[in-house]
């Protein structure tokens, strides 16, 4: 129940009560006091003569009350309704403004009325709160960016020195194995740091895309050819069901990265001898790229989280699959940086389909 309705209910209840009291008082006056007075007069008059005098009927009084109190109550109610509306409009406005706040526009302020009333004060408090939140968000972004930068130097050294050691001809094959294994892990770490840096920069709005007109279908065909080769060792069949000629405005490298990330995921999370189907078509003013795979499917409870950074549906998977766990997050960023959308549909033992929609040129 809204405040407005509640206020109106209380208001009308009070109004009715007041009206009732007035009516009751009037009736009491009419029926009891007047009657008593009347009887006295009648007694006195009957003692003198029996001449009639016009007297006010109690029914008339009720009529008068009905015709005066009812409009008053109705008018009062309407006025109350209007008044609460007027009083609460700034609250509705504030609610709408607050509703629009999300992590990306925390820097923006809700406009204040400046009249110093309670709602103006509330707006000010809200603004202070979002400013503080904005600060914390910025600090987290900066921290991630700095952390990934800081990690790069030691990683470079670790990688370089291990490679230098590997050049030593006198190493036994065991020692060599161990060093190569170290090197593999260092490289994995480097990939994670790379992905993290990219996303941290994207969050901070520090990545400028190189926009040009791109034949998206050519990128899809290219990606299809690579995916076939990528899928071969797992016996996964890749097919390109449709590939309409479509141009979009975008960053060629980023779009290729997007396609490769999706194809890589579709192959990696597939089952042996599974299928991957790609499809590019025009749909409602968008270039729509769909890629589905016949993997085990994603349970509904984890479906909303697949774009989260480092999120892996099955913790056991993180041990066996390579990659940095940021592929889909990066894909999502690329799609939205192009003014597009990405979404995933899946259910256990059903096809998993990722759909990317990019605005046409």
């Amino acid at each position, binding site marked *: 129940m809204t405040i407005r309705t509640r206020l109106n209910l209380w208001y009308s209840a009070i109004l009715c009560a007041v009206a009732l009291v007035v009516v009751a008082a009037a009736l009491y006056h009419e029926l009891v006091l007047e009657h008593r007075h009347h009887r006295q007069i009648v007694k006195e008059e009957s003692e003198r003569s029996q001449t009639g005098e016009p007297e006010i009927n109690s029914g008339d009084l009720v009529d008068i009350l009905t015709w005066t109190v009812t409009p008053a109550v109705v008018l009062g109610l309407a006025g109350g309704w209007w008044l609460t509306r007027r009083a609460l409009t700034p609250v509705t406005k504030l609610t709408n403004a607050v509703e629009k706040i999300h992590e990306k526009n925390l820097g923006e302020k809700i406009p204040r009325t400046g009249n110093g009333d309670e709602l103006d004060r509330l707006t000010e408090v809200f603004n202070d709160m979002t400013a503080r939140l904005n600060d914390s968000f910025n600090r987290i972004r900066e921290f991630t960016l700095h952390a990934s*930068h800081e990690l*790069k*130097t030691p*990683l*470079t*050294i*670790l*990688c*370089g*020195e*291990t*490679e*230098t050691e*590997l*050049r030593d001809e006198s190493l036994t094959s065991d020692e*060599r194995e161990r*060093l*190569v294994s170290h*090197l593999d892990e*260092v*490289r994995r770490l*480097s*990939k994670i*740091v*790379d*992905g993290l*840096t990219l996303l941290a*920069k994207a969050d901070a709005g*520090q*990545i*400028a895309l*190189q926009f040009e007109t791109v034949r998206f279908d050519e990128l899809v065909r290219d990606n299809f*050819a*690579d995916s076939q*080769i*990528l899928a*071969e*060792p797992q016996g996964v069949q890749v097919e390109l069901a449709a590939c309409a000629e479509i141009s979009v405005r975008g960053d060629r*490298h980023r779009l*290729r*990265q997007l396609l*490769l*990330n999706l194809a*890589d995921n579709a192959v990696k999370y597939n089952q042996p001898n599974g299928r991957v189907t790609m499809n590019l078509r025009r749909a409602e003013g968008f270039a729509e790229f769909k890629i589905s795979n016949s993997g085990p499917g994603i349970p509904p409870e984890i479906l909303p989280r697949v774009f989260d950074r480092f999120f892996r549906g099955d913790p056991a998977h993180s041990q066996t699959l*390579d*990659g*940095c766990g940021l*592929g889909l997050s990066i894909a999502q960023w690329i799609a939205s940086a192009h003014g597009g959308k990405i979404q995933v549909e899946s259910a256990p033992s059903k096809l998993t389909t990722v759909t990317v929609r990019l605005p046409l040129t």
Partner: protein
Amino acid sequence: MRVLVVEDEKKTASFVRKALQAESFAVDVMANGEDALLAATGTPFDAIVLDIMLPGRDGLSVLRQLRERKNTTPVLLLSARGEVNERVEGLNLGADDYLPKPFELAELVARVRALVRRVGENKSVVLRVADLTLDTLTRKARRAETEIELTSREYRLLEFLMRSAGRICGRMMICEKVWDYNFDPGTNLVDVYIRRLRGKIDADFEPKLLHTVRGAGYILKEQQ
């Protein structure tokens, strides 16, 4: 061949120097931009490995100064920031190559080799390694007397490997030159393609030509 390495991080400078020396380069190391500029203008180097983040004058400024002074020594930029824009900016300023940190040492060495050899690059139409030939006009590959069918990607990969025959090619460099990816694809795409190519040019023939260098990349050469 003499290379100038400009890197303020001591350990990095040290293993880069060692690796390049192992490839019989003479290596000078400088730790800041001013010294590097002085050294580069006074001594003719065959290549310069230049870190962008340096104390005092940064790498991009050193590069700009060098080019303004008509110094055309090939420059390989190193950067921990790894931004596409920075790469474009560097290349526009006249850098010849760009390598983001953390990089692989083999990758760096291969790139420096490519820089100093760029002048004398193998430009012939028919490339040859042992009995493997690749005609870059007709795009036909032959091993001994057998003709080999190649897809266009495989062709580009083989051409790149044959042009760099005898030198280690890092995965990232292959990705860049063959796929034109300026990002780490994060897949084993290169390895899978190499495996296919190997099946075509090496499987039925002796001696094997395409070798894996563990922890570094691939190399096409006659004998291991």
